[in-house]
């Protein structure tokens, strides 16, 4: 699995591609830990290029969600489709995880959340 980071304003877009499974889930956790250490706590996880996800991959998303809460940050998970969507629906986590349709929607929501926090 490849991970690419892109900065957008005060948020970081984490682009995943490949398989988010038992063998790669740890890398996502490492990345968010490094971002948190650099005080970057607004994350958008882009699953557009993820071809497969298993329970460990779901676990890594849950871990990231829990970290965001601890850091008082913001998380959005965008471009959830295909088999990834089926697995998340099967585990009934669609309503639990902060899933949005697209990166643009995620950015808009994070910008709105930032404005609320500053006002």
């Amino acid at each position, binding site marked *: 699995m490849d*991970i*690419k*980071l892109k900065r957008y304003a005060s948020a970081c877009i984490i682009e995943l591609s490949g398989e988010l499974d*038992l063998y790669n*889930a740890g890398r996502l*956790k490492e*990345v968010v830990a490094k971002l948190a250490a650099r005080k970057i706590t607004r994350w958008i996880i882009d699953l557009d290029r993820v071809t497969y996800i*298993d*329970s*460990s991959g*779901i*676990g*890594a998303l*849950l*871990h990231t*969600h*829990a970290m965001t809460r601890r850091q008082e940050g913001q998380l959005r998970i965008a471009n959830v489709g295909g088999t990834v969507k089926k697995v998340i629906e*099967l*585990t*009934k*986590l669609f309503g*639990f995880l902060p899933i949005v349709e697209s990166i643009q929607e995620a950015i808009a929501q994070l910008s709105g959340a930032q404005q609320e926090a500053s006002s």
Partner: protein
Amino acid sequence: MGTFAPVMMQPRLVASVFLLLFWILAIVRRRARHLLLLGGIPLVLLTRDVLQVFLPHAALFPISDIVLIAVYLAWLTAHSPRPALDLSALAVTILVAGVLVFGRSLPIVLHNSWLLHALAVVDFLYLSARFGATDAKTIIRPSGKGWSAGGQPEAEMILFAGSAACLVPLAVHLALAFGWLSSQQAVTSLLIAFSCIPHAFLIEAAAGRGTGRSETQAEAVSGDLEALCALMEELEGTLREDAAIDRILDRSIDCAVRSSGADAGAVFMVSDYEDSLSLRAGRGAFPGLPSATTLPLAGTFIGEVARGGAAVFLPNAAADPRWTRQIPVGGKDVLSIIAVPLTVKSRVMGVLAVVRAIGGAPFAEREFRLLRVLCGYIAHTADSVFSHLDVLERKGIELEQETASAIQQRLLPSSLPRWLDSHLAVYSQAAKEVIGDYYDILEINDHRIGILVGDVAGKGLQPILAKIMIRAIFHLLVPPERDPAAVLSWINRGITGTLNIEHYATLMFLVYDAKSREIICSNAAHLPLLIYRKDRDAFQKVTTEGLPIGIDRKARFGAKRIRLSAGDIAIVLTDGVIEAMNPDGQQYSLERLTRVLRQAAQCPPHEMLRRIRADHAQHVGVAPLVDDQTLLLLKVG
């Protein structure tokens, strides 16, 4: 004999013999074999002077001068590392020498002998300017540590020769002009005799510098080898103590800075996720640090070196646009810089860079070569450390998995109530690296059982701990608690927050009452309960609301009651069964499972299970097991 003594008393003959002896002594004393070619000088001079005594001819001097120049040029070409450069620098000198040799009979010269001296002075000034200029440091590279190889000794000799060639005759003419010398012939003889002195100095300079240069080359190789061995010893010691990559890089930059005589140095490693480099070790005041510990790959000198993958040496950084394009803080104090990428099999892992500050001497080719050698070793050592850590991690996981597998066996129920034999069949197979599945069956009373089937995410000991907790709470609650939703709720409250959230569990808990032929089930995001209705020969899926266990302490779970008929079959499974792939990557699928079940529906549960497992094994073939598989069949009697 009578004429021999007076002949030998000729000053120029004495000087030539002296020069010949001087040359022989230089070779013997210094073992300077490279001087052999210069032996042509005293031999030519001696031959000329002997012939001048016995067979005087005006052409002797021009011819001997031409031969002398040819000997010097041949020697320079043979021993200079940049013969073309040195010869081009001597072009003016050769031109002046040509005028001196062939032009002295020209009327304009005969009547203006000062012209020759003026030309020699001009040549001397040209040589000084040429070799003394800053941009001529390709030939002259003064260094506090001694002469460096590459032409400097030759340049020094050329300057000396030029100065002697014009100053000696100038001094003689001045002496004549002021009346300090009276005889023209005596002056000429003395002049010719004294002209051997510059040749002697040249031979002496070549002997000393030449052997010095050879020693410098040998010393340079020896020094580089010493530096490499010191690095190897340093890193080997560090690896034995602690195979931490940052310690390795720290010792590496320390060795690199010391070996190259740098004022500061740093090692940057390329990020796995971003187009940037991060500082991992440093010595001294490296430009741009510590204000920035990460550098982008684009737009910075170090980043461009990493992207290009080739070592870069800037002897004069201030004059090089690669450095001046974007000078980091403190960069203006940099005199020269060497940056070498740390590369293994064309993959650039990072960059090691060293700098020298203004006020000192710039780096030389030698330091550049040395650092390329050292960085090759550092890169392979760092790569070995990364590979070693991967192996350790895998070994650690394997050990953890072996432990988890042993514990797993002890968690599974060892025996079932006897009245269930004709009703229930179950199998569970753990994959090598997973062991996430869990099932348990507890007898509530003589006609009622509680069945728990689950799948814990992740690998290693953490899922095992989760299963131990689930089992403990399950055995605590059941009996007397028979409400599946309540059981899941209690399990969830016990697990959530105790383990990492990524080790959540999907669970299905159902209570089967054999007398009333009822199932009450509650599902925490597990695969739906599958019911085969015999009368309709159809399958029905049953699920309830509920998040996976271990995510939200306040999660609520639903429950459903299902009435069954004789011959109906309840199937509980984990996703490893239907997602198992054959060598072509095709999943077993729920459709195939239900097809086999329908065909075997008349059989007792154990026979049904046997047929399903046989069909499953036929599908999977030699493909490896990547996930646990658990399948429980409950047939209503």
